[in-house]
């Protein structure tokens, strides 16, 4: 297996240009997501889904009340979200056909020609990333440009990002670089900078695509403490197995063992 590859999305230098969304669709031939004015700041694609594999969120934060600052904006946060390519990927766990698989780069990819559209993966994802496409019923999401990686190229979104807000590389290197960036921002008087999804100890065993955020994850529409939804499956199976055995035993006690008649 090759080195595990990942994304580090540094939202502190995202300019919200959406080049990642466009480059992703161009390369992967993802259909448009409809032409809907959502009145949600400058975001009109809404969220990650079958037809949007990179999604830029825009969060307008009002200045603290008081003084003349009450009417103005304090910050305009922008962040390009993407599939997390979890270490423990629930979508992969629940896929009955093997359409979802772990690549040699440590990423999680759906094979469109195998997917039968059962949709089990959709509720399994703790981030709400993977989604079924209405038109063909199959599940779609970011592949971290598996085909480009096979050809030695970086994913289209990272290639197109003008400010290097989206960085692609070996996950270990990215984690080290991200730590340095957070330290630099703290030293520059921005204590709010923090990493999200970088820790192997978190609920998904660490994300293959992690982020530098400037506020709580919920602000960006990210779950604060995601847990792989299949985490409790083994235990559940154990409980279920135990329960089954108990039940079988009880049944056996009731009906299976003939009672002796006193005679």
């Amino acid at each position, binding site marked *: 297996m090759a080195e595990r590859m990942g994304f580090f999305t540094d939202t502190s*230098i995202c*300019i*919200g*240009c*959406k*080049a990642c*969304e*466009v480059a992703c*669709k*161009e390369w992967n031939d993802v*259909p*448009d*997501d*409809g*032409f*809907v*004015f959502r*009145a949600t*700041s*400058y975001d*009109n*694609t809404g969220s990650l889904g079958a037809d949007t594999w990179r999604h830029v969120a825009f969060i*307008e934060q*009002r*200045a603290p009340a008081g003084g003349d600052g009450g*009417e*103005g*904006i304090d*910050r*305009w*946060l*922008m962040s390009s979200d993407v599939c997390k390519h979890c270490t423990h990927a629930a979508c992969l766990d629940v896929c009955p056909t093997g359409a979802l698989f772990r690549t040699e780069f440590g990423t999680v990819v759906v094979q469109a020609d195998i997917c039968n559209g059962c949709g089990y993966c959709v509720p399994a994802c703790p981030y709400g990333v993977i989604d079924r496409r209405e038109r063909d019923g199959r599940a779609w999401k970011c592949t971290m440009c598996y085909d480009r990686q096979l050809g030695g190229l970086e994913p289209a979104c990272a290639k197109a990002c*003008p*400010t*290097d807000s989206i960085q692609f590389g070996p996950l270990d290197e990215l984690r080290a670089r991200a730590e340095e960036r957070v330290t630099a921002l703290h030293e520059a008087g921005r204590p709010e900078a923090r990493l999200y999804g970088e820790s192997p100890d978190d609920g998904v065993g660490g994300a293959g695509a992690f982020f530098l955020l400037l506020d709580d994850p919920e602000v960006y529409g990210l779950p604060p403490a995601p847990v792989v939804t299949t985490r409790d499956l083994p235990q559940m199976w154990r409980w279920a197995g135990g329960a089954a055995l108990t039940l079988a035993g009880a049944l056996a006690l009731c009906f299976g063992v003939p009672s002796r008649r006193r005679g």
Partner: protein
Amino acid sequence: MAECHPVGFQWVVEAQARGAKVFHVDPRFTRTSALADRHLPIRAGSDIVLLGALINHVLRNELDFREYVLAYTNASSIISGRFADTEDLDGLFSGFDEETRTYDPSSWSYEGTGEEPAAGLRGEQLEGGRRHAEAAGAEQYGSGGAAATARPPADPELRHPRCVYQILKRHFARYTPEVVADLCGISEEDFAELAGTITANSGRERTTAWVYSVGWTQHTVGAQYIRTAAILQLLLGNIGRPGGGILALRGHASIQGSSDIPTLFNLLPGYLPMPHAHEHEDLAEYLTHAGGDTGFWGRKRSYVVSLLKAWWGDAATEANDFCFDYLPRITGDHGHYTTVLGQIDGTVKGYFVVGENPAVGSAGGKAQRLGLANLDWLVVRDLTLVETATFWQDCPELETGELRTEDIATEVFFLPAASHVEKDGTFTNTQRLLQWREKALDPPGDCRSDLWFYYHLGKRIRQRLEDDEIDRPVRELTWDYPEEGEYRDPSAQAVLREINGTGPDGRTLSGYVQLQPDGSTRCGCWIYCGVYADETNQAARRRPGHEQSPVAPEWGWAWPANRRILYNRASADPEGRAWSERKAYVWWDAERREWTGHDVPDFEAGKPPGYRPPEGALAEAALAGTDPFIMQVDGKGWLFAPAGLADGPLPTHYESHESPVPNTLYGTQANPARRIYDRPELPYNPPMSPRFPHILTTYRLTEHHTAGGMSRPLAYLAELQPELFCEVSPLLAAELGLDHGGWATIVTSRSAVEARVMVTERVRPLRVQGRTVHQVGLPYHWGWGGGGLVTGGVVNDLMPVVLDPNVYIQEGKAVTCDVRPGRCPRGTALLDLMEEYRRG
């Protein structure tokens, strides 16, 4: 910049990572503000107040880079005693003619010139300003500088009351932080922070750069906005030095190129003026009027003769004035808006529209369409069927009954064009960098490049010509490029080679100093001479940055002479030593007796700092070894412009034409020389009108391109910003009853347009002159058709046609409007609404 130039913004992000501080001055909080260290919301149309106050701050506190200012600018030059300032005349300069609304600039000249021609003083200035204003003459000094004297009297102590420094001090004295707060809506504390930061970051060790775009240019005082920034940067020593400068961000990929090799009516290639029909009877007379004789502009005969030789080859001889008579002539203003009025009046019969979409992309959209509807023929070349090509069957005037398709006699020819990836050629970017690109694939179907179109059109026209004398200029044109491929595309490399120019031996020249006045050299654009040096396409060089110095001289080719920073002699002190180690760029090597450094020195390589010109010297020999601004007749950076501008030698704050507030600085409300039209098709909102109480400013979004012709038909872009919206503050929304996500109608005296409502704290009401002023933002990417997947109101229909007098740019960034909740009435109901507003 992040909003409209996201790719270039990567360098700002990189600079921030190295400690640069970024201020963003903009009426709205944009994607640039989001990353800037500080955002300063400003009232649209008040920038000269802010910049003027910075100048005043520098002068009053003597924070100027005095050594630089004394040696390299005209601070010490003494101005004519006939000059009167706006201080004296309540907002007017001397020389204003109320009747023609033009200036005679002769009183703005250096002392000792004006009445009698001095050495180096020529034509224009002595003729007065009328012609100058009439044909956007001021713009013709793009690389030359206006005529003036090389050695005006000067006071190096800067004490003479009429020296530029003292005039400047008096002129800007009223631009105080209090006035900034009152007119711009920027608090005194915020101003102090800005002023402190830029002055602390200027001088020997540090430099500050200003970056602007059409937010500064699209005003009736647009050219003077840039002048104000230039004065500030010269005072702080930030011109000609690394990390300094005033950087213009262009609106398209090669807008710089389209003024170098101009698509402008008043210029020939290389900023040579277009000859005037009645004033330039022969080459000698033309040269007399075409700028000064000192500085490198003094070689203008070589530039013009080489151009004529490139165009007419062997037919151009000394005996026939090198075919100077063959050049087309102008008779006055032939700018875009004058042309449109000519169409409406029936004097302009035919129209080529190439890669533009004036039916939705130009100010006063209705007038544009009325003009199109009154033509005999119209040629549109574009990637898709833009609105300009389809107006006759779907424009809004059909719905209102103002036009009927069956009455429109315009014969429309739509010719599909090749896109930039389907043809070879160059882009010239804002750094004057020419970058060659190769064709990636053949254009589909009947699509052809513009080069193909004009070349083959020319060939066909020439085939049809008889021996008529009047056609001789077209018959004798050099029109013989090698043809390539199935469609016989002319070779773009051959065109670039022709632009570069050749010597008597037929080999390519390596620089413009080789050009000769005797017809022995040919050159299609003198400033591009060297782009094909050594018979090699220098623009195609792509050596990666990490394989060369930070200046990266082997990436593409920058005009002139591959210099990356213009006037870089100013990066060294008068003795030729770097101002500081940290900011070393080019310097004088005393041992080898030549200029050297990281960039190509923008100076004669062997001219020592101690050189002093002899009396009567011409061209570059008239400039001293301490004169860095080698295109200027006096080699100085002009704090005060003694000639060359149509509306004054110094920037002055005037309110925009339709401003909602009075000009409290002077009795003159708006730029007195601005170009206004007295036409029913081009109405204006009265200034300070209660009917139009809000400021309206237009802009672009990252997701779209100009009027949308290149982005609305593309699903991946159209879905990102599918509808026209207006940005309003929560306060204004509450006042007017606008619902976020609902509809609003924006009204001016031109038209009304509906838009979805975006209520956002990013737009902030400002306190101006003691009252609350609201600004409304509208991106202008939509139209009714154009093959677009998304459609929307034409914002340019709302815009007035009132122009800057120097370059004839329209005022699109600071106009007034009314806003009403709900959708816009259609058809005759729209006309009724307009009538209602007209009656008040």
